[in-house]
């Protein structure tokens, strides 16, 4: 039985892990068991799902970005490389 009892720190760690679909079955059992005695972690979990949605928006934005070096930076790099080669 003691194995099922976890602290809020552990419970929220599992909750964070499960946001990425990477919590194990046993971890999820422990988390749900913890919810029975802790409403704060239940609240954390609900808010965490909302935070995940916000992060998704951000991730979606970043996918669209294409990072390039400016031609100025490239010219400077070329010069520096040539100096090193010489």
């Amino acid at each position, binding site marked *: 039985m003691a194995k099922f009892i976890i602290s809020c720190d552990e419970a929220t*760690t599992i909750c964070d892990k499960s946001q*990425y679909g990477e919590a194990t079955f046993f971890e999820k059992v422990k988390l749900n068991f913890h919810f029975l005695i802790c409403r704060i972690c239940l*609240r954390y979990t609900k808010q965490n799902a909302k935070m995940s949605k*916000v992060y998704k928006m951000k991730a979606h934005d970043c996918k669209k970005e294409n*990072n390039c070096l400016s031609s100025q*930076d490239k010219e400077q*790099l070329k010069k520096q490389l040539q100096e090193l080669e010489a």
Partner: protein
Amino acid sequence: MSETSTKHTLDPNTWIDKYADYLFNYAVTRVNDSDIAKDLVQETFFAGLKSAKNFEGKAAERTWLVAILKRKVIDHYRKINSKKGKAEVRMNFYENSDNEGSWLEERVPQTWDNDADKMIETTELKSALDQCIDNLPEKYAMVFRMKTIQEFETEEICKELDITASNLWVIIHRARTQLRKCMEDNWFNS
């Protein structure tokens, strides 16, 4: 039969045009700072040039340069990891002694009022989030971004930064706990 396996060669004069953008993009998705990424790319080319004589031709030019850049990214991670105290804003959320692992009373998550309205995608929401991520200790921000924003696999991050999976989850947990609180104070309940 003669040996036909092609041996790869290096041609540093074409490096910048061929690989600078690729390497820069690789670096920036990991360190999330274009100045640092630029420095890492520069160091990679310099290191490549220096060790060009050791190039055995077993790997393609780009693969070889990426391998050098990977080392630079690890070095960068170790550097920010060892920066102790300085501008560290890591917050404790759980009790340490008597009631170990329970929420600290003053850090307990509060209810969010009207959060449905606050969840609508706006530039204000995004800039509030950016600010909160920037407030994280550098190491947390880096691992959090790689996992959550760039959506790298756990295994890949562990390999690239040379950390264990449980190490990664502790970092993700701390980052997310701090971010939730920051967004609560500055967005949801502000």
